């Protein structure tokens, strides 16, 4: 399809053209483009390209791992914020629950004294966070959207305060010696160590790819359509027979699970966690990644996560000001480009775009349908 340039004198934006071009490719052609890109992404820590590298300031492999870790979180948060349109400000709470579950099960400091291997802790952590997502969601998801934001903010704080004050969770002393995956080289040395980011980066990238496939399928299913319908207009969705509460809960639990997975990976990598570092600032940073990259767009949120981790590490001068810069960036972005750097374009119908094009001919002139991109001229609330 070559509806690339101008339709009826209307200039088609670059992003749309890219999207159309991508959509017009066959499946194997898409793979032919994707595979080299993915291979390149995998090779990044080994190549350590001169201009791109964050060294000598920060270890490049660790930076990459952190970017991948935040990207995974952003993908999870994107389900909640971008897909279902629920503003979750306590996402760090789920991340913390995942990290703490892993720590409690595996650390020698734990009261359980069980020291399960990391690979068992990961599904356990995902399960516990999914349950905590359901527990938090069940009473709160019936609330109005803006109330939900503040309740989730409270939840994030409660998790932190529990970690701080409950004696078995060890507060500031924390849990040390949390193991990673037990994989050894031929000479018996561990592959997954806290100082070497490369294997962790590869692991996380692999997890991200798997999660992306699963989430992508979910989004193209009835569940995903229900989410978008809820995001666009909850009342209308309810009226059309979408069980909104159940699907919101679903989104919440899915998002929580991915947050827990990420927390588990994080705990394994750093090997030590305590009640520090799970504060609201971190939560807002996660949100910044999603909003910056483009809420509702999976590629966008990965880009957003990369930006918020990589930029401060690469340009050390701004590291001190990064939170300020991200805060200001959010304001500016919301005014001038509320859909983020890469906006979402998901249709209510999975094949809506194609159906639409068949109907009116070609081209793409509906404005963005993202929850954040729906600026209506002249309408004042």
């Amino acid at each position: 399809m070559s509806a690339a340039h101008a339709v009826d004198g209307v200039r088609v934006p670059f992003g749309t053209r890219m999207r159309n071009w991508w959509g017009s490719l066959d499946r194997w052609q898409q793979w032919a483009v994707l595979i080299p890109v993915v291979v390149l992404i995998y090779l990044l820590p080994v190549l350590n390209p001169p201009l791109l590298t964050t060294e000598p300031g920060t270890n490049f492999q660790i930076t990459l791992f952190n970017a991948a870790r935040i990207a995974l979180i952003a993908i999870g948060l994107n389900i909640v914020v971008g897909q279902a349109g629920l503003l979750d400000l306590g996402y760090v709470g789920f991340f913390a629950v995942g990290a703490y579950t892993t720590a409690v099960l595996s650390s020698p400091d734990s009261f359980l004294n069980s020291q399960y291997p990391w690979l068992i802790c990961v599904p356990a952590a995902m399960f516990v966070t999914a349950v905590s997502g359901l527990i938090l969601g069940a009473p709160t998801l019936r609330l109005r959207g803006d109330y939900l934001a503040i309740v989730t903010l409270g939840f994030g704080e409660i998790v932190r305060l529990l970690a701080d004050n409950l004696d078995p969770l060890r507060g500031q002393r924390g849990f040390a010696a949390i193991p990673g995956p037990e994989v050894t080289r031929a000479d018996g040395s561990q592959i997954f160590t806290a100082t070497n980011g490369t294997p962790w980066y590869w692991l996380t990238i692999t997890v991200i790819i798997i999660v992306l496939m699963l989430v992508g399928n979910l989004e193209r299913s009835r569940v995903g359509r229900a989410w978008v319908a809820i995001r666009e207009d909850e009342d209308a969705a309810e009226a059309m027979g979408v069980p909104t509460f159940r699907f919101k809960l679903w989104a919440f639990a899915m998002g929580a699970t991915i947050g827990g997975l990420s927390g588990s990976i994080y705990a394994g990598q750093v090997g030590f966690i305590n009640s520090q570092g799970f504060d609201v600032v971190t939560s807002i940073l996660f949100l910044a990644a999603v909003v910056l990259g483009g809420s509702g767009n999976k590629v966008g949120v990965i880009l957003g996560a990369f930006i918020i981790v990589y930029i401060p590490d690469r340009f050390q001068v701004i590291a001190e000001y990064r939170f300020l810069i991200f805060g200001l960036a959010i304001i500016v972005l919301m005014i001038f480009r509320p859909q983020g750097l890469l906006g979402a374009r998901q249709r209510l119908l999975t094949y809506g775009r194609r159906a639409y094009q068949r109907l009116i001919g070609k081209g793409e002139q509906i404005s963005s349908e993202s929850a954040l991109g729906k600026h209506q001229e002249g309408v004042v609330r």
Partner: protein
Amino acid sequence: MITHVTSVLAQDGLVDFNFGLLVDRFWANTIDGLAYGSIYALVAIGYTLVYGVLRLINFAHSEIFVIGVFATYFAFAAMGFAPGGTAQVALLPLIGSLLVAGIVAMLASGASAVLLERVAYRPLRKRGAPPLVFLITAIGASFAIQQIFLITLGGNSQPSIRLLRPTEVFSVFGARVTNIQILTFVAAIVLMVVADTFVNRTRLGRGVRAVSQDPTTATLMGVNRERVFMLTFLLGGVLAGAAALFYLMTIPAAAVYNGGFLLGIKAFTAAVLGGIGNLRGALLGGLVLGVAENYGQTFFGGEWRDVIAFVLLIIVLMFRPTGILGESLAKARA
């Protein structure tokens, strides 16, 4: 759900319930709670007003409050009060200094609230942005203001300047009532009455209520909507500035960049508790929260103090989302 969790925790002996202490300290807790709760109430008005008129949770309001705290602090410093110890001042200069500091704080908070509305929210309104965008902008603004303070003034709180030492004026059932507490409580009530009268009795206040009921119709009836929005932010900011003065008098070492976060959430809880959008509800909610928090602190132990507000918020939103008095800025009689 969370109460259930805590009861389970109690069985394991993780949380000590202290019923005897609660009885012993009942009156002291009540009095402290009323005084501290009136600070919540003053900040809560800002949330309530903006929510009533714009249907927006102004997340950055907590930072407006922090601006007031720093303004008070630097006003104290500029008037020659040094950190450490209590300043030795005669009564009249003391009242004068407090008044000046209060006015400075109110001006600073009020002006920055109006500025925030201009810079962050008005452009969004012009574009007809959806609610989620407003909310995210508010969070971004809150974050940015907090970081400005962190970068310019550092992460530690400013050394405390104390103008007035808390001294017992009289006692209720053995619980002492200090001069600062009386001052805070009375001033809060007076300011609330003034704000309530302003919204319910004056011509400008009628405009506020009209916009709150129906912005479009109000505009057609000749109400200047933009001016009402500005006024709303100004009033909320000024009261937050006043709250900042009493806050800093109560806790002199509280001038710190992230001091607004918890207080902001609690003030919001107070607003929801009383019925968001309802001025009298904000007062009631603030006082109830202040007292409840103190009882809870005595009962469960000090480290759970901040959890209580959150749990209360969730419970209120679950069972009575319209709050104790209902959401009625708009419904108030003309």
